[in-house]
């Protein structure tokens, strides 16, 4: 988009203003002006949205510190069935053995009854919860400072952040316009945030690299989409596995058989979020692996106690 014509970002207030401010702050716009065309809101102004730690960092670097808007620190975000997906890790490893393996063996052989969730490490995660109305207003204020305006003129260049605009022919799509998202403002914002970061990296500033940049953007979006869709399938499935992708099925079987989160590129969630999601779907590893058997039961008992809930804050 190496043009001086304005670029119009079309989307709900939350999606569009976040996209606009991030682009204005970080994308190589080569002088192009940004304007926002708001569509219907997807969240009420008094709804509360959770910003993941990496989103908070991005917000701070665009000049928006959520703490100053009264955002409350949080240690987790919630799934549709009140699943708690923590930003901090579960317990601590011991002698190279993961805490989850230690917890599993403690359950099997020591009768440990506390949930893995109750061992979430204490301390600030950097994540926070903020009211949608305040957040959008702050984004608009910053947008004004960086030269983004409400839409005032027709434009041939469109960044689409709203999935419901079928008539538009966008130059590119971000967030909910890229994938089918379940009704979760947190996931929706995460999709906007990550896709806009990819768009910034792949922003084309010359005619002759446009196809290449678009392919790279698509490659990154596909990986992001796969990760978010897998998480959605897990959280919204109510125990049905029909909607699981082959990749998710593989990750489930690795978790159940090996007690490990299979690593994939461009994963949008941390291992502890996957573990929490698996456990909330009642997918528990059948064995802790052999490595944990290098520890004695006394070591395991002691270690579980040192990571016990009385030392940590509530999720």
């Amino acid at each position, binding site marked *: 988009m190496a043009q001086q014509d304005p670029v119009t970002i079309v989307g709900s207030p939350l999606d569009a203003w976040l996209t606009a401010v991030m682009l204005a702050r970080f994308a190589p716009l080569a002088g192009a002006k940004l304007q926002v065309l708001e569509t219907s809101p997807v969240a009420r102004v008094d709804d509360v949205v959770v910003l993941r730690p990496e989103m908070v960092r991005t917000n701070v670097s665009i000049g928006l510190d959520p703490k100053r808007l009264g955002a409350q620190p949080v240690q987790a975000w919630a799934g549709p069935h009140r699943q708690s997906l923590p930003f901090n890790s579960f317990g601590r490893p011991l002698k190279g053995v993961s805490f989850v393996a230690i917890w599993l063996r403690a359950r099997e052989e020591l009768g440990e009854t506390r949930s893995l969730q109750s061992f979430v490490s204490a301390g600030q995660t950097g994540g926070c919860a903020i009211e949608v109305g305040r957040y959008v207003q702050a984004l608009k204020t910053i947008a004004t400072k960086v030269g983004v305006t409400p839409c005032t003129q027709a434009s041939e260049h469109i960044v689409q952040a709203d999935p419901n605009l079928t008539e538009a022919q966008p130059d590119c799509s971000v967030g909910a316009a890229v994938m089918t998202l379940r009704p979760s403002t947190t996931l929706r914002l995460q999709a906007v945030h990550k896709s806009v970061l990819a768009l910034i990296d792949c922003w084309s500033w010359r005619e002759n690299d446009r196809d290449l940049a678009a392919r790279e953007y698509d490659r990154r979006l596909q990986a992001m989409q796969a990760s978010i869709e897998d998480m959605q399938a897990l959280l919204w499935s109510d125990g049905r596995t029909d909607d699981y992708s082959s990749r998710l099925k593989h990750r489930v079987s690795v978790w159940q*058989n090996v007690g490990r989160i299979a690593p994939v590129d461009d994963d949008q969630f941390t291992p502890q979020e996957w573990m929490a999601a698996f456990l909330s779907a009642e997918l528990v590893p059948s064995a802790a692996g052999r490595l944990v058997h290098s520890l004695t039961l006394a070591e395991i008992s002691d270690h579980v106690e040192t990571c016990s809930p009385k030392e940590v804050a509530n999720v």
Partner: protein
Amino acid sequence: MTIQPSPLNVVIVGGGTAGWMAAAGLSSLLENAGLNITLVESAAIGTVGVGEATLPHLRFFNQAIGIDEYDFMAATRATVKLGIEFVDWGKIGDRYIHPFGDYGIPNDGVGFHHFWRRFSGELGSISQFSLPVVAAELGKFEPPSDDERSALSTFRFAYQFDATQYAPYLRRHAEARGVTRLEGRVVDVVVDEEGDVRTLKLEDGREIHGDLFIDCSGFIGLLIEKALGTGYEEWTHWLPCDRAVAAPCEHAGELLPYTRATAREAGWQWRIPLQHRTGNGYVYSSQFIDDQTAMDSLVNSLEGPLLADPKPLRFVTGKRRKLWNKNCVAIGLSGGFLEPLESTSIYLIQQGITYLIEMFPHGVSAEVARTEYNRIMDLEFKRIRDFLILHYHATERTDAPLWDMMREMDVPDSLKEKMALFRARGQVQTYDHGLFLEPSWLAVYLGQRVLPDHYDPRVDEYPQNEIVSRLQGMKTHIRASADQMMGHADWISLHCPTPLEGLS
């Protein structure tokens, strides 16, 4: 195959670097986990002694299994490696160091190399913004700092060591942790009706039964291939070097903290300075040079008197179709071989052991662990493969048929896209898992004349004088940090000299 809880009989075949690393790793990290580990090796069968030069990851393996770094370095006559110097690759006369560390620091999400591309005229070589490169060129070394604010935290280091000493060193470590070593030659492998390896028959009539077998028998793949017929995925059309000849010689000159890889007519030549000698070798393609000419070429180019007869090697670049097949895991050369250009052989051994330990089942079916292990190792091999191909393909050399072929060859699509993206936009396509991250790709791209057509236009948003002044300051600081380090040879003498009686 279900892996029984315990006791579980693990049998390792082969006592080279891979075999003893596996034995030491399993016996240290799975101590008390119900394993009976037996290693079968024959003194009559030589070992390759793979990988005189290593990657920084080996330090973590040694630490994890409880090895004292200085003791290890003294025993293996090790020196420090801060990177690899590539000579004559992009063009004859070119040279650059691929360092174990970063170039500069990014600014507001814009990679350092974009700033360098914009102001390279004022700033000079990008290598001057890499502390390990500057230190290497000065022959200096000090261990990295843990303080993230310090320039000394921007690099890592590896070892250049006598690989033939590593296996015996690990053997002592493993035997002290209960590994049983059997001297003997495997003459037959018994496979049961389910296709699992069950028994090894030795030349003297002994039979070794096992539940899980680790094939470290080298290129031959005694279990994984000869017994199980797993199959091999060849990559010789992309990496055509298929032979090497190795020859140690006496030192001449300063003890350098880096390995050198010099491109030659039909391949490339390594130079690895150890405490007591210099390791040398010529890796070549038999399509373009015969064995005798290659050997003569190597011997005639040595910096000092030859210390042993040149040792020839043959290999086929590629990997087994499955590194874990049935109840057999192939680790080391039996699993595959990517030529030694970036010192990845020991890294792949280490990853094979680490993943095996992490996924080692206990009382459940191994099928899922096996699938996941193969998926991850496949990724490791393929990402290294693409990076190695880049070295050959990114050349302007026209002096020899090998280089013409490599320059013109059709590379894997995955690499093609990466190179196009960098050329057009200076963008490095990165990944989360696997070896060689952005600084490594940058080193080879820029060192071999793959220059971006354009820099990121956000660079122009910064005041030019201020940026140039800041980057000049960074360069000065890096140089000063390197200057303050100890000489590499002095550091070795102070911390980990090989005792005189250990030198030969």
